[in-house]
């Protein structure tokens, strides 16, 4: 299954706001995407609670996985989102 491993760039981790932006982006993908920390249990990237439960802080490596048509593009797009400091965008953009 195609995968991407990416380091959480948001300063305060994958918490409420960055998590919400990530979940919304995952919901907009045409394929189901799962997210896990290390060898942990994969969780649906579209579930806010499941994503918060990961407890991923700044610097945590997470792995995204998806299968089927559009999987590669979906993974690229979501990995790119996690590699951005979404908290910094709040500070500058209001």
């Amino acid at each position: 299954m195609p995968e991407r491993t990416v380091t959480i760039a948001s300063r305060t981790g994958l918490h409420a706001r960055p998590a919400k932006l990530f979940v919304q982006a995952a919901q907009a993908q045409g394929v189901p995407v799962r997210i896990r920390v290390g060898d942990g249990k994969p969780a649906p990237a579209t579930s806010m609670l499941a994503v918060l439960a990961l407890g991923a802080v700044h610097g945590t490596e997470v792995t995204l996985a998806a299968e089927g048509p559009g999987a590669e593009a979906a993974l690229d797009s979501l990995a790119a989102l996690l590699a951005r400091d979404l908290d910094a965008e709040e500070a500058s953009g209001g």
Partner: protein
Amino acid sequence: MRETAPLPLDPRAVRLDASAAGRDDAIAQCGRALVEIGAVEPSYVEAMLERERSISTYVGEEVAIPHGTLAAKNVVRHDAICVLRFPGGVDWDGERVTVCVGIAARGDGHVRLLSELAQILMDPDRARALREADEVSEVVRLLHPTEEDQ
């Protein structure tokens, strides 16, 4: 792999039967509960409203988790949560909210708090118990799971 610790919930910051005129009123009440237990300075309330305007803190299961912006971390005195229940429901940008868990945390503390809370809410039985508990002590116990509960 992950550290677990009790959520810092002071029983004085639990209200089982609150009512609010709307989302912002509910958030202000959460903020005041955190002020009253000495966890935050009064200016934290405005930071919670600001955060909510930026993006909704609704997480599912009729629960919202209002908290302040990054910039407001310096007015947090100690990590704390509060639990306010709104049995009549609050319209939260189109979602119905009956439980607000207000959060104040310094540094990375809130990530752990949110993780603990999310794991409780992902269990439908515990989420329902949180919505329906009749006693403050029951709410405190739900959020302080013992080893045997996990």
